[in-house]
């Protein structure tokens, strides 16, 4: 098992309290950053680390931080996106619940780097009990002089507030999150202007995922170069994966992005193989909105190489034969699962969560759901499959925010890789109601094109 940077101390008894966290070496990065480093040096360190946003898009964090505008006399804000609503993703919940001080520590350092004196944690409403945990942690940090006015006598002031969302997936999109934080309806804004120029209350704002901010702590403690040594290529550091579905050991795992997907699913160190001795059929490797892959393409890339658990390898082959790292919500489907049913539930989710602002997503998501339900219940036509393909194509890329893409991708990938299962549903209308298509050929090795 690889090195752990974030969850290393997560199981020390009472790590949730300040005293234990401090005893285990907590808040060292705040002392180091505030006393011996300049804000620019911290940004530089994060840039060197190669840390990529852990929320889903994987944008380099250090680069994002340099975009923030610094107009004279205008306050800047750091907002932590804890609106973790992607189906299959529950890593931030784990992190905040077990080791809340890590997030607070990362936030103080990041706030200092960005010049934010008031920072926010926007947390999804369903995580009601975590709000109490975080507020407890904030109060403790404040008592011990790590928050509030003149932190550690360095003259830097910082306050952190926790804001609860009201249960909308769309508020995980950064501009919708900002709208919601301002107390408005959570509709995504039209970009540009980007939040780094005009964010919350028209002020420069950086929105980062919980895990991203937590990862700043080991980067400052050990240095960006050391952090960058872990992992492969542009996938540096460690990543939290929330594994779920038909596996023996679901849970949150911290991986160092060098292991293969096969190892991750079947090794006893990680997921421990498929439940009840079944066979692997498909997997959604990065949270519900990334393309689903059949077993053969999941374990090896189209070039015949072993697929690794990192940003580059998971997206190898583009959407034609690859997927995405996404938010790390690893959903495994065994041979008894129905891909049509699975796609339908995802489509239903996206229809329910579309904000209704722009027309392709508002109308298209509902349409796709209805057609998928028709196919799933044995009332579909072969032409419906092509219609679905056409609808998703007209949604993708034509919407204000990425929710439209997120709704289109799972449908597209399911049709791309599992078209015969859809056709089987249409052609065997009665059978599909009480029988499954099964594994079919989805685990068969794929022919690798010969390289000359």
């Amino acid at each position, binding site marked *: 098992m690889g090195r752990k940077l974030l969850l290393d101390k997560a199981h020390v008894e009472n790590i949730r309290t300040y005293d234990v966290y401090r005893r285990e070496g907590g808040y060292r990065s705040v002392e180091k950053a505030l006393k011996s480093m300049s804000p620019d040096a911290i940004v530089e360190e994060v840039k060197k680390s190669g840390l990529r946003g852990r929320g889903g898009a994987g944008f380099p964090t250090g680069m994002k931080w340099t975009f923030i505008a610094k107009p004279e006399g205008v306050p800047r804000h750091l907002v932590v996106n804890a609106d973790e609503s992607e189906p299959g993703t529950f890593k931030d919940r784990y992190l905040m619940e077990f080791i809340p001080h890590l997030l607070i520590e990362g936030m103080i350092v990041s706030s200092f780097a960005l010049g934010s004196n008031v920072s926010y944690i926007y947390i999804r409403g369903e995580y009601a009990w975590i709000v109490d945990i975080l507020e407890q942690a904030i109060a403790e940090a404040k008592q011990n002089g790590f928050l509030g006015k003149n932190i550690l006598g360095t003259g830097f002031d910082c306050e952190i507030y926790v804001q609860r969302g009201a249960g909308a997936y769309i508020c995980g999109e950064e501009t919708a999150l900002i709208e919601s934080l301002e107390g408005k309806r959570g509709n995504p804004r039209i970009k540009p202007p980007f939040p780094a120029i005009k964010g919350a209350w028209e002020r420069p704002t950086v929105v980062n995922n919980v895990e991203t901010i937590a990862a700043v702590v080991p980067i400052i403690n050990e240095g960006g170069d050391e952090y960058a040594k872990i992992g492969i290529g542009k996938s540096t550091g460690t990543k939290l994966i929330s594994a779920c579905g038909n596996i023996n050991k679901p849970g949150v795992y911290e991986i160092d992005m060098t292991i293969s997907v096969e190892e991750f699913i079947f090794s006893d160190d990680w997921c421990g193989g498929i439940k009840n001795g079944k066979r692997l059929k498909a997997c959604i490797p990065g949270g519900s909105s990334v393309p689903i892959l059949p077993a053969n393409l999941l374990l090896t890339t189209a070039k015949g190489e072993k697929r690794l658990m990192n940003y580059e390898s998971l997206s190898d082959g583009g959407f034609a034969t690859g997927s995405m790292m996404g938010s790390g919500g690893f959903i495994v489907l065994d041979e008894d699962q129905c891909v049509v049913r699975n796609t339908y539930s995802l489509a239903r989710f996206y229809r329910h969560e579309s904000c*209704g*602002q722009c027309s392709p997503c508002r109308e298209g*998501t509902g349409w796709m759901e*209805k057609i998928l339900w028709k196919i799933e219940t044995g009332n579909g036509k072969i032409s419906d499959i092509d219609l679905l393909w056409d609808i998703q194509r*007209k949604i993708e890329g*034509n919407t204000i925010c990425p929710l439209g893409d997120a709704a289109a991708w799972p449908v597209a990938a399911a049709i791309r890789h599992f078209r015969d299962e859809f056709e089987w549903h249409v052609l065997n209308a009665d059978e599909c109601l009480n029988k499954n298509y099964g594994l079919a050929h989805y685990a068969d090795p794929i022919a690798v094109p010969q390289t000359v």
Partner: protein
Amino acid sequence: MAEEIKNIKVTIDNISIEVAPGTTILHAARQIGGEVTPPAMCYYSKLQGSGGKCRSCLVEVSKGSEKDPRPMPKLVASCRTTVMDGMEVKNITSEKVPEARAGVVEFLLLNHPLDCPICDQAGECHLQDLGYNHGKAGTRYEFKRRTFEKEDIGPYIQLHMTRCILCYRCTYVADQLTEKRVHGILERGDHAEISTYISKAIDNDFSGNMIDVCPVGALTDKTFRFKNRVWFTKPVDAHRDCNNPKCCGKTTLWLRGDDVYRVTARKDEWGEVKSYDGKPGWICNTCRFDKKKTSDWVIEGPTVINRHSVISQGHYDGLVMPQETIEKVLNGRKPKLLMDIHDVSDVNKNK
């Protein structure tokens, strides 16, 4: 007005024009005019913050700017994208745009009731125009269309939520023209609706302008309801001394004989309220709903109306006619004495 600074060159569909910095692609296209102007369903230049939602104005940017010539990866909403120097935009010459736009039209019409024959907006409806110009004949939707519970929003305005395309224009009117907005969007996604929370009646001096900005028949004039078709009424420009300081008093009366059937604000060629002295010519509810006699008004003369509407123009060119099914019904026998209007009559022939 001060001399406009024009130093940004933009090319739309191979037509170059110089515009002021900060101009949007849509406005640059409107300055060129004609066919290269993308349609706009939700954007309204007089309402701050509007636009970007309906996606019918999508265009392709094939060259970002002189400095950064890379094309933009996705189609962009022309109403909210500002031009850069040297930008090249493709609207009607693009391969991707017509398809995407047809997709948007299909989405907008998906749950639309298509009750044009009984809709007061018919004839001046932007969705009709958009559908005729950019859509496809026929729908692929085979499910029940969405309906809403009826809601009474007061004595002057009729709300038909089923026709609404959620352009948000009316909420911007309420925000920017009236003192307090009492209606808004409730719910989300495909069940989002315009509503006054707990059926509160909309009652203020400028609420009537919501009717003018509504691109479809979702908000119509209750005092004109089912009275006449817009193309039977004759528009004339008129004005009166209105004592409401925010009302411009310049209107269009829609007459039939000497009867004033309807009063609206004056509109420009893009279907937007005209501006006077740089201010949008909004009118108050007294002018709109209460002054329904010709003696209330000083009539200036017939309104020059832009015949963009498909109904006023009758341009059914290029429309795919519904397939003739008679032969099929008659087992391959050609009809001889049936009313064979598609082939015989000149009335419905393509020009």
